[in-house]
């Protein structure tokens, strides 16, 4: 069912509702039934049924205190550069040896992630960044969002993917951002509209008083019904309004299908856990959503970073672990891939305020049942000649991994599309997804 016919249905339903006085609930059921039939068909036609959950670590995560070197020159230099912030060796959770032979381990707050790692569900991609690193939060985030180091693109890499992969854009919930009210640039597309939802419970038409809600919604639909041929812009507004209505109905009725389980507890004090719980609700509703976006802020740790950074990593790993367990329970773990990213790592040398300043490369995590677990690439070298002179952060060297390699891998090996058009070139693929 393409976009026109789906909209055709809503328009006709609207007419039915008003002309024969069909009740609101019956109407909603009709919309829902239609949506489901759309989605069933779409799923059957679609070559892949895979879902990506993006987790942004906003502010520039201190990668060196996330994946910590335990042997070799990196380990000794790390302790030398981080007199107050180095994690004591005995507290580090060793995970294995990287391609250069350096034993590395997780920050102790990543213990739940370590468990997933031990089960083979986590790929740690080391030293991810891009040439000529930009140390401005906004500029570097834009580069990651758009996959364009020139920072000139106005659409995001996943927005471009949606435009390429879903040209008919027939589902208003193809992708959903749960990272506040503003749509992350990553998901900005030319064609596909992605809702930015601060909270699923708030993604509703608010009306006062409550008793007038059905009257208002019925009228809203009637006002957006097709009338005599009008200006093209008015027609577009009308159709998007109907899309909005439909997405609200789909989401609100869909998330009710999620049932909680006593063994799965999302910590409500942890904002990332709350967001991922909503992701689980959306996925359980099976609305055809392919990309979900969440964010955890606070990684810009310029001063007294030890405690806040530990808290953030603990939130991250706790939330990811409970979400993963929930996916297993729901039978969805095979279909979901999680990717973390942060706009940059931080300087090797801690600053005078027991914090760290903006740097360059950092680690990325891919998490999921279909992930080929292990360490990809090498820990950044901390030798003086491998640091940017005067800046004290690792150079983007031949050993580093371009973030667009991660993107290309996800596009090619997970979503199974040609990544070159989206990324503006071919990038080396990483061996991180099981066939």
């Amino acid at each position: 069912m393409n976009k026109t016919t789906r909209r055709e249905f809503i328009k006709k339903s609207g007419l039915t509702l008003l002309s024969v006085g069909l009740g609101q609930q019956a109407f909603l059921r009709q919309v829902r039934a239609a949506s489901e039939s759309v989605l069933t068909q779409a799923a059957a036609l679609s070559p892949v049924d895979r879902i990506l959950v993006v987790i942004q670590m906003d502010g520039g995560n201190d990668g060196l205190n996330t994946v910590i070197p335990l042997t070799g020159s990196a380990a000794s230099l790390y302790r030398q550069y981080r007199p107050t912030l180095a994690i004591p060796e005995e507290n580090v959770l060793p995970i294995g040896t990287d391609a250069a032979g350096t034993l590395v381990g997780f920050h102790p707050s990543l213990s739940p992630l370590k468990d997933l790692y031990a089960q083979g569900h986590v790929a740690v991609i080391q030293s991810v960044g891009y040439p000529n690193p930009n140390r401005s939060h906004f500029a570097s985030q834009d580069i990651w969002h758009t996959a364009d180091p020139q920072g000139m693109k106005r659409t995001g890499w996943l927005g471009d993917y949606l435009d390429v992969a879903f040209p008919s854009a027939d589902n208003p919930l193809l992708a959903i951002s749960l990272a506040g009210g503003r749509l992350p640039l990553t998901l900005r597309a030319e064609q596909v509209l992605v809702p930015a939802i601060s909270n699923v419970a708030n993604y509703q038409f608010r009306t006062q008083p409550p008793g007038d809600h059905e009257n208002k919604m019925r009228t809203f639909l009637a006002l957006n019904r097709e009338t005599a041929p009008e200006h093209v812009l008015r027609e577009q507004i009308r159709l998007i309004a109907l899309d909005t209505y439909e997405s609200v109905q789909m989401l609100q009725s869909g998330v009710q299908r999620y049932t909680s389980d006593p063994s799965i507890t999302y910590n409500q004090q942890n904002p990332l856990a709350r967001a991922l719980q909503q992701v689980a609700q959306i996925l359980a509703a099976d609305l055809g959503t392919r990309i979900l976006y969440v964010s955890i802020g606070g990684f810009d740790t310029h001063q007294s970073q030890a405690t806040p950074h530990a808290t953030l990593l603990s939130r991250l790993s706790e939330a990811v672990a409970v979400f993963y367990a929930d996916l297993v329970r729901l039978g969805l773990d095979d279909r979901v891939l999680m990717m973390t990213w942060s706009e940059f790592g931080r300087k090797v040398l801690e600053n005078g305020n027991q914090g760290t300043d903006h740097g360059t490369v950092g680690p990325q995590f891919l998490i999921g049942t279909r992930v080929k677990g292990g360490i990809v690439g090498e820990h950044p070298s901390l030798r003086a000649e491998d640091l940017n002179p005067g800046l004290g952060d690792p150079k983007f060297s031949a050993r580093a991994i371009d973030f667009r390699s991660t993107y290309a891998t996800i596009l090619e090996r997970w979503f199974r599309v040609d990544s070159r058009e989206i990324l503006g070139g071919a990038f080396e693929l990483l061996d991180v997804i099981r066939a």
Partner: protein
Amino acid sequence: MPLDEYDKIAHLLRRAGFTAHPDEVEAATARGLQATVEDLLNFEKFPDVPPDPELLAALDLSQDDFNRMRGDFLNKLTRWWLHVMVTTPRPLQEKMVLFWHGLFATSVTGLEFWQQIYLQNENFRGNFDPDTGRLLRPAPGNPFPVGNFRRMLEYLSKDPAMLYWLDNQFNVKKNSEVGSNENYARELHELFSMGVEDVVARVPNYTERDIRQASRALTGWRVLPRAAGFTFPRVFFFDAQRHDFGPYEHLGKRGGTNADFIFDNIVRHRNPGQKQSAVGRFLGYRLFTFFGYEDPEPEIINALADVFDGAHGEEPFNIRNMLRTIFTPGNIVSEAFYSERAFRARIKSPTEYVVSLMRLLTFDRTTGRPDGLQLSSAAMRLLQNAMIQMGQQLFAPPDVSGWREGLAWITTTSVLARFNFANDVLSLGVAQGGIDLARLIAQAGLQEAMQQNRYGEVVDTLARWLWPAPPSAEAREALIAYLQAPIPDVNPSTLATTKIRGLIHLMLAAPDFQLC
């Protein structure tokens, strides 16, 4: 079908300003279309909204104190500007400040000193003197917002926020090819004056070398880090030590000792075989897209470019003359402006949406003006937060190319944000700084009509108040049905008010109110 006189004047008021309340249209009709155009254009004869003392006081705080409240400052500044747009007797002035903010898009996200964005806002209003760092109303010599574009380029290039935002602050003499930072020089050509290509001829306007040479001329254009009497960098400083005195090779000309040479070349630049200047066409395109409709025809762009170029003997580079051409009947451009194609064919930006809503709902028929809302009210905070959800945070455009206008404003998120904002702002009581619905109902004479079940009249009156055109038969029928639909558990004494509030909410959420 050509527009009638009422529609023409209403269309003019909505586009050159923000709204056309029936009373405003009636008053303008009495003056006549021609006189109304001149009133809008010569806005200096009307009083301006005064500056907010709290904002001014914040400019004198120490940097540490200021940084502790800079988020609050930005909120206050945003609310103040919205308040100005709602209450100003100079609507075209504020429309143009909004135009320049979108064209010369500068975001606080790239600024160390957020105070500078306020100075820029006043600069675009003509109230800032970059050479002294002082705010004056007006600042003598400042060409914004409708004066000489050649001089605007100078005032823009001296603007403290701009000098920081695009790094020209750090542009120092390097060699005979390029300055040390070409960021500003690039955007000056690409985004601020002519664009990569001639908008009509579709040929390249300049080369990479022109950018590099221009960056030389802009070396040493910076802001004094400290100036006596000021707490943050706000005084333009020409640093001869850091400046490359040329000569430059730029847009086919050789010479110059300073950026004046670059500005002169830019505004006079014509591509080979082209009758109109590249800048005239670029601005003609941008202005007509902003006031008229998207993708204007080449003849319209060229006619506006001719005005910019002074082809008929007018003063060249004058923005007010271009606006006069758009709005004054009797030429090809205004014919397009007052055409069926232009009528109701602009999607309101979030700013235009909230400002038009506030102007219409707080319009006082006894004074003939909108009251606006209390700056510090819950309603103003609501409005400001809602705009972020709608996709437009003033002073924080997504990047230097500004906001994507038109249909890009309408997304599922923004449809919901507009719907919910209208609901929320109408639900606030007067005590919380909300809208005085009782006065609106009384002034529109709706009470009696409701009591006597004259629902069609209620719908028609509010549609005339809020929508650019009468409702279709279907919409009218749906709105009447809404007024008649019972609400369980509502006190009969408040039912009429509740229904009118609901009707206004629905009309503000309908496609008709998204267009102007």
